């Protein structure tokens, strides 16, 4: 081996190079060692410069270090050499053993050929033997097979012959499933040979099958059977090719007919609702119509469940049925709420319907009944909300129309109204509190509707008020026509009530409703209820109505005055003997106004004495003007009218400009005062249209003088009344051909006479009323 090792030196060298490049991933470490170990000329590392390395070593290190380095390197080189030798040895060993093995194989393979030939020969003989056996057994096997087939056939024939009996047995044991299986198994044979060899047999089995079919049908139709059994029966019937569809149709028709019984009769709905509510309270009262209804619906849905399982293809029809029931439910509901229905009743019915829907929905979830009913419920609910509002309005207007002069009722009416409002709210809250499935979904919508409902309600209430008051809106012509005709009949008091109601609504009801809405009906995304706007509307309405009331009242008085001033010829008036009738009528009308006002409107915050304090300057100026005026009257005899006119102007200049027509307020005093002022103004205008002789003027003087005391009593603003009364006298004097006022004593006498007379009249009146 050592000899062989020598020639391998060259090879080893190459190997060493390869090994070094292979075993040292970092050339910077291996190269210096290898380069040092072999020769300094031979550079194995890619970037090794031995000279440089040497230079560096020499420059950097002293002699000791260099020597040390030399020793170290020599040791390393020796190590490497040993390693290499070891490697070469190992490889060589392996090579030697491989050569040995090949040598052994060559000797072993010898003699295999002969064995193989022997094997082939033996296999050939086995094959020929097997062929021989096969041919000898063939005939017998054929025979056996034939016999087997015959046996099978015979077995079938036997089966068919046994079929009727077997079927009978099945009928007896009600094993219809087996019977059908047998029959359908025999069918192909019976079909082929039924007319020939198995005639009797076929007939008998058909008869049996008919019985079976009959039995199955009864089973299918009987409600007492379990669904499972019925379903099975249906399946069997189908297997027997019985036309199941017609059966199905029949059954479904029956189901459809039963729908009628399930409907909620609108007329009886309230009873139903009542019982529903009461049965909630006491469980014992279970036999109420609600319970009956529930059972019926339960039965219906059970039937549907059964049919669905029995006839899987009937789903569509069942859906239709369920939908129809739901729809009719809601239609009936709608009919029901056409009448007046409380929220509780409404909810009662709603709950029943919802329960029905839930029952049916369990059976037929695919019918989307809950969606359908949710939609329908929305519509119904919306209608209910709308109807509730319209009923509310109806109530209010009924109450108002029943309005009587007997005004205590008016106050009651007002109370009633507030109660109505409250009840309305309660009802809606009840709706909202209801947590039946649908309602939860619709809460937001419901809130929106309620808000909008209130908004619309108040708006229409306002216009309704205006229509009721006879102050027709020109927007609706036909209505305007009708109302215009009846406007004469509208009682003035009603208008005043409406005005006051508007104030109440503006100041109390709307804020309260707004409160309620924020408390219980907020959260909807729509903010349809705008209390500010409604307040404005009612504020405007109340002012309009109040003005309308005053207008209606003054119109009446104007008519009295007009008649008074149109008929007599004032130029030829006779000497005044007494206060004229129209004064009584005027006062009577004013008294009526006062009465109405007292019963409906609140008192003003300040009373006379207080006001005269604040308006003291006015009172004084007016009294001054009165004196000035009476001075003028005294002198007017001798003075020319020209200077009189001048003086009137002068008097006006000195007078503070009395703002006669101030804004009307919602107080008794303000309304009465305004009415009186307007009447006096009318009086002045009428006077200005006439021409008077002396007596005519005196008559006016007397009438006005008489009016002074009672008017001042009723009125808030004495200064203005004084002023207006004076104006009437001035107007009369301006239109008088001969101004000669009555002497104060005569004036006094006439007035006293009138007072005495009216007193007596009153007494008489009282007496008559007492006696009657």
């Amino acid at each position, binding site marked *: 081996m050592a000899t062989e090792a020598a020639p391998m030196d060259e090879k080893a060298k190459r190997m060493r190079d390869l090994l070094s490049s292979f075993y040292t991933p970092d050339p910077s470490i291996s190269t210096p060692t290898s380069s040092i170990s072999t020769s300094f000329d031979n550079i194995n590392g890619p970037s090794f410069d031995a000279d440089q390395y040497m230079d560096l070593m020499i420059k950097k290190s002293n002699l000791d270090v260099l020597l040390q380095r030399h020793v170290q390197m020599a040791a390393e080189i020796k190590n490497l050499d040993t390693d290499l030798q070891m490697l070469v040895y190992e490889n060589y060993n392996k090579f030697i053993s491989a050569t040995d093995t090949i040598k052994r194989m060559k000797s072993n393979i010898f003699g295999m050929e002969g064995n193989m030939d022997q094997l082939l020969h033996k296999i050939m003989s086995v094959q020929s033997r097997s062929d021989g056996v096969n041919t000898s057994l063939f005939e017998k096997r054929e025979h056996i097979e034939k016999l087997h087939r015959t046996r099978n056939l015979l077995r079938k024939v036997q089966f068919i012959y046994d079929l009727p009996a077997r079927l009978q047995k099945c009928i007896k044991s009600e094993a219809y499933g087996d019977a059908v299986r047998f029959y359908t198994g025999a069918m192909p044979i019976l079909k082929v040979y039924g007319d020939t060899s198995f005639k009797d047999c076929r007939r008998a089995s058909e008869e049996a099958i008919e019985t079976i079919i009959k039995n199955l049908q009864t089973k299918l139709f009987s409600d007492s059977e379990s669904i499972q059994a019925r379903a099975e029966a249906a399946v069997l019937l189908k297997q027997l090719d019985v036309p199941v569809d017609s059966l199905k149709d029949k059954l479904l028709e029956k189901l459809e007919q039963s729908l009628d019984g399930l409907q909620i009769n609108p007329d009886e709905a309230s009873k139903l609702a009542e019982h529903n509510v009461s049965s909630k309270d006491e469980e014992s009262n279970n036999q109420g119509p609600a319970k009956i209804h529930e059972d019926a619906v339960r039965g219906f849905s059970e039937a549907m469940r059964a049919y669905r399982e029995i006839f899987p293809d009937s789903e569509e029809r069942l859906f239709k049925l369920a939908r129809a029931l739901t729809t009719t439910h809601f239609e009936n509901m709608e009919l029901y709420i056409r009448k007046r229905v409380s929220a509780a009743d409404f909810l009662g019915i709603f709950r029943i319907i919802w329960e029905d829907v839930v029952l049916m929905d369990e059976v037929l979830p695919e019918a989307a009944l809950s969606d359908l009913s949710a939609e329908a419920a929305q519509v119904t609910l919306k209608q209910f909300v709308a109807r509730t509002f319209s009923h509310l309005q109806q109530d209010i207007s009924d109450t108002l129309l029943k309005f009587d002069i007997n005004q205590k009722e008016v106050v009651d009416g007002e109370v009633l109204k507030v109660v109505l409002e409250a009840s309305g709210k309660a009802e809606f809250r009840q709706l909202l509190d209801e947590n039946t499935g649908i309602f939860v979904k619709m809460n937001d919508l419901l809130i929106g509707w309620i808000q909008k409902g209130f908004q619309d309600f108040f708006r229409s209430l306002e216009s309704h008020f205006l229509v009721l008051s006879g102050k027709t809106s020109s927007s609706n012509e036909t209505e305007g026509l009708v109302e215009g005709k009846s406007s004469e009949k509208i009682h003035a008091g009603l208008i005043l009530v409406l005005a006051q109601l508007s104030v109440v609504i503006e100041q109390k009801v709307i804020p309260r409703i707004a409160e309620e809405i924020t408390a219980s009906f907020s959260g909807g995304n729509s903010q349809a209820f705008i209390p500010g706007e409604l307040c404005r509307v009612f504020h405007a309405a109340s002012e309009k109505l109040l003005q309308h009331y005053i207008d209606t009242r003054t119109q009446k008085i*104007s008519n009295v005055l007009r008649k008074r001033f*149109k008929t007599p010829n004032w130029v030829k008036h006779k000497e005044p003997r007494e206060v004229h009738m129209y004064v009584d009528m005027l006062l009577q009308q004013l008294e009526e106004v006062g009465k109405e006002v007292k019963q409906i409107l609140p008192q003003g915050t300040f009373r006379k004495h207080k006001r005269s304090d604040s308006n003291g300057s006015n009172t004084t100026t007016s009294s001054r003007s009165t004196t000035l005026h009476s001075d003028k009257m005294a002198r007017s005899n001798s003075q020319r009218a020209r200077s009189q006119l001048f003086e009137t102007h002068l008097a006006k200049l000195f007078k503070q400009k009395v703002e006669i027509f101030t804004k009307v307020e919602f107080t008794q005093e303000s309304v009465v005062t305004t009415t009186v002022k307007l009447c006096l103004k009318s009086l002045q*205008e009428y006077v200005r249209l006439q021409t008077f002789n002396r007596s005519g003027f005196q008559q006016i003087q007397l009438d006005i003088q008489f009016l002074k005391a009672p008017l001042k009593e009723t009125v808030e603003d004495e200064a203005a009344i004084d002023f207006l009364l004076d104006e009437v006298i001035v107007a009369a004097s301006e239109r008088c051909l001969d101004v000669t006022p009555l002497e104060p004593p005569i004036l006094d006498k006439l007035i006293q006479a009138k007072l005495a007379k009216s007193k007596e009249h009153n007494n008489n009146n009282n007496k008559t009323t007492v006696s009657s």
Partner: protein
Amino acid sequence: MQGGSSGIGYGLKYQARCISDVKADTDYTSFLTGTLSLKEENEVHLLRLSSGGSELICEGLFSHPNEIWDLASCPFDQRIFSTVFSTGESFGAAIWQIPELYGQLNSPQLERVASLDAHVDSVLWWPSGRCDKLISMDEQNIFLWSLACSNKSAEVLSKDSAGMLHSLSGGAWDPHDVNAVAATGESSVQFWDLRTMKKVNSIERAHVRGVDYNPKREHILITAEDESGIHVWDLRKAKAPVQELPGHTHWTWAVKCNPEYDGLILPVGSTRQRVNLLLNSYTDYEDSVYGLAWSSREPWVFASLSYDGRVVIESVKPFLPRL
């Protein structure tokens, strides 16, 4: 008496009720007004707005024999006008002609063209132009007159009785239809066709004081009422008013449509002495305002006359752009 008066004032000596625009005067904006004095000699004033529009000048002063309740200027002859007057016991009417002035101002006599010899309440000229016919009304009757200025005569062409109960008080002649006239009565506004002299229509409305046709829109009529304010009517559907406008606190005495600007309505009333326009309120009055006239020459100018004899000319020009 209070500041802020934008109007031009003019004072009559006595109380007065009526003022009329002199429509036929195309050179100047002028008005005619007459006094209402029971005992003094009454006067007719011819007023002219100075060209700068800052002054109201008295162009003529004529004495009139009786107190004047109504006055209307002839729409085609500026020198002719009609008056309704009261003699104290009864009413009468006459057509007058203003004499040639020749620069003097010393109360010349008016020439009486014709007397409408009846118990007259109101005289109407056709507002839209030359028409030699006149309408007069008394409480129960309506008359159609033919006027001949040249030979100073007027004769009744036809008449119709409204009936005892209606007591006509005034009216308006439709500017769109020379044959249609409206009259205000006790309980209704009544319409006549002058060709047949028959009543053709009526609006049931009590206490109408003033009535005026809209000169810009046919069939539109406005009424002023005692208690219930101002209403706009479409005569084709006269059952209900088209529009309701807020009136005065007390009676609304008269209402006039602007001759040029559609929808500009001017009512006057007896309370707070104000002229109320939907655009603006004029409150600078001391007494009830009965007389009212738009100028046809300068349609933004109107004259109002309060009972104490004050003529005030106002311009609505500042408010017009808003229309």
